[in-house]
C-alpha cells in the first residue's frame, strides 16, 4: 500500500515538473531575445517614433515633389534655376540662424534674487545659474520656439550656456545678469509652457526667489549669429563617398 502511495506521489510530482519545465521553456523561447519588463514601453516608444518618422517622410516627399516641379518649370521657362537657388539659400540660412528674424513671441528676464543673504545661507541659491537658463531654453524649444537669443546672442545648434564665475558664457561671449531671453513662436503656447498651471519651470525659479518676468510680444527681432563657425572635423557625407 505504501508503495502505491509513493508511486502516485512521484507520478504527480513528475507531471507537475514536466508541465513547469514546458512552460518555462516556452516562455524563454517566445521572447525574441530577452523579454524584460522594459520591453513593452520601449516598443511603444519605437512605434511612436517610427510612425512620426513616416509622417514627416510623407511631408518631405510632398515638399520635394513641389521643389522638383519648380526646378523643371524654371528650367523650361527661364533656362536656369538661379532664382530657386537664391530662395532656397535664404530659407536654409534662416533655419540655420544666419539671418536676423522677426516675429511674435515672448521675452523672459531672469535676474539674481533680491533676497537678503542671511548668515549661513548658500549664496548659490540666490543666483541665476547656467542650468536654469539651459532648462528655460530647452522648454522654449519644446514649446515650438523657432529662434531664441539671450542678451542678443543667437542660440545656435552648438551654443553653449555655461557658468564662468559670476558671469555666463554664451557662444564664447560673457554675459552678466539680468538675462533677457527672447523667443519667437506662438506667444500663447510659449507662455503656457513657461508658466503653466501644473507649475512651469519659471514658477519654480520664482519660488526660489529669483527675479522673473515674462511678457508676450507681438513682434520681437532676433539677431543673426555673426561669429564664424569653424567645422574642421566634419567631412560631409558626400565627400566621404
Amino acid at each position, binding site marked *: 500500500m505504501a508503495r502505491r502511495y509513493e508511486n502516485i506521489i512521484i507520478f504527480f510530482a513528475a507531471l507537475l515538473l514536466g508541465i513547469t519545465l514546458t512552460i518555462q521553456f516556452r516562455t524563454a523561447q517566445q521572447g525574441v531575445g530577452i523579454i524584460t519588463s522594459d520591453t513593452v514601453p520601449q516598443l511603444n516608444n519605437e512605434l511612436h517614433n517610427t510612425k512620426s518618422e*513616416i509622417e514627416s517622410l510623407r511631408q518631405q516627399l510632398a515638399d520635394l515633389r513641389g521643389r522638383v516641379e519648380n526646378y523643371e518649370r524654371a528650367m523650361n521657362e527661364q533656362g536656369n534655376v538661379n532664382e530657386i537657388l537664391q530662395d532656397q539659400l535664404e530659407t536654409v540660412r534662416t533655419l540655420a540662424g544666419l539671418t536676423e528674424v522677426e516675429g511674435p513671441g515672448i521675452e523672459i528676464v531672469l535676474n539674481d534674487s533680491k533676497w537678503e543673504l542671511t548668515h549661513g545661507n548658500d549664496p548659490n541659491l540666490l543666483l541665476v545659474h547656467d542650468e536654469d537658463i*539651459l532648462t528655460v531654453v530647452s522648454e522654449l524649444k519644446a514649446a515650438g520656439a523657432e529662434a531664441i537669443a539671450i542678451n542678443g546672442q543667437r542660440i545656435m*545648434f552648438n551654443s553653449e550656456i555655461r557658468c564662468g564665475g559670476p558671469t555666463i558664457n554664451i557662444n564664447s561671449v560673457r554675459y552678466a545678469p539680468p538675462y533677457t531671453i527672447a523667443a519667437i513662436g506662438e506667444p500663447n503656447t510659449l507662455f503656457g509652457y513657461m508658466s503653466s498651471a501644473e507649475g512651469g519651470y519659471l514658477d519654480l525659479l520664482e519660488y526660489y526667489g529669483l527675479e522673473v518676468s515674462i511678457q508676450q510680444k507681438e513682434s520681437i527681432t532676433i539677431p543673426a549669429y555673426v561669429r564664424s563657425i569653424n567645422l574642421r572635423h566634419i*567631412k*560631409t557625407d558626400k565627400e566621404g563617398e
Partner: protein
Amino acid sequence: MKTFKAQMSIGLVCLALGLMLTLQFRNVQNYGGILSVQRAQELASELKDIRTQRDSLQERVKEYESRIQEYEESAARVSVVAEGMRNDLERARLLAGLTDVEGTGITVTLSEVQPEQEFNVFYIHYDKLLKVLNELNAAGAEAVSINEQRVIATTEIRLAGSHININYQRFAPPFVFKAIGDPQTLEAALKLKGGIAEELEYYGISVSIKREQEIFIPRYGKVLEFKYAKPVDK
C-alpha cells in the same frame, strides 16, 4: 533500504520541482509574464510592418533628392553664380543640420546601473542630458546626435511622462550621444575633475566614452520650417 531510496528520489524530485517553480515565478515577476510577452510580440510585429513602410518612403525621398541634386549640379556647371549659391547652400544646410555628416569624435553612452528597486525609476533626467550636450558644445562639438536624433538649434530635451522627448521623438535610457569634434578635447571636457562624468556616476549612471575615428551622424529627420520667424529684409 528500499523506502530510503524511494524517499530520496521523492526528495530530489521535490527539490527540482521547487527550483523550477521558483524560477517560473521569478520569471513572471521580472518580465511581466505571458501577457506582457504576447503584447510585446504584437508590438514587435506591428513595428516590423511600419518599418518596411518607412524604408520604402525613405527610398522615394532619396530618389527625389538626387533629382534635385542633379538640377543643382548641372546649374553649377554652367554658371559661376549658381555654383557660388550652391556652395553657400551646402554650407547653410550643414549648419542647419540638414545633411548627414561624418568625422572624428566620440560616442558617450549613459545607462542606468540596474537599480535595486523593483520599478525602474528614471535616474537619467533630462537636465543631465542637457548638461552633457552643453559640455560637448563648450568643447567644440561640430555636430551632435542623441539616440540618432540630430541636435539642431530647435532641438528640445524634455521629460514627457515616462520618457524623454528629443525632437518630439520618445526615448528611454540608455542614451547614446555621438559628437563630431576633436576626440581628445571632447573626452577631456566630460572627464574633467568634478565634471559631468563624475556627477553622473555619483547619481548611479554609468558613463562610457569611446573615441572614434569615424562616426556618422544623421541629418535632422523632420521637415524644418518656420511659421513665425521671418527673415528681416535689409
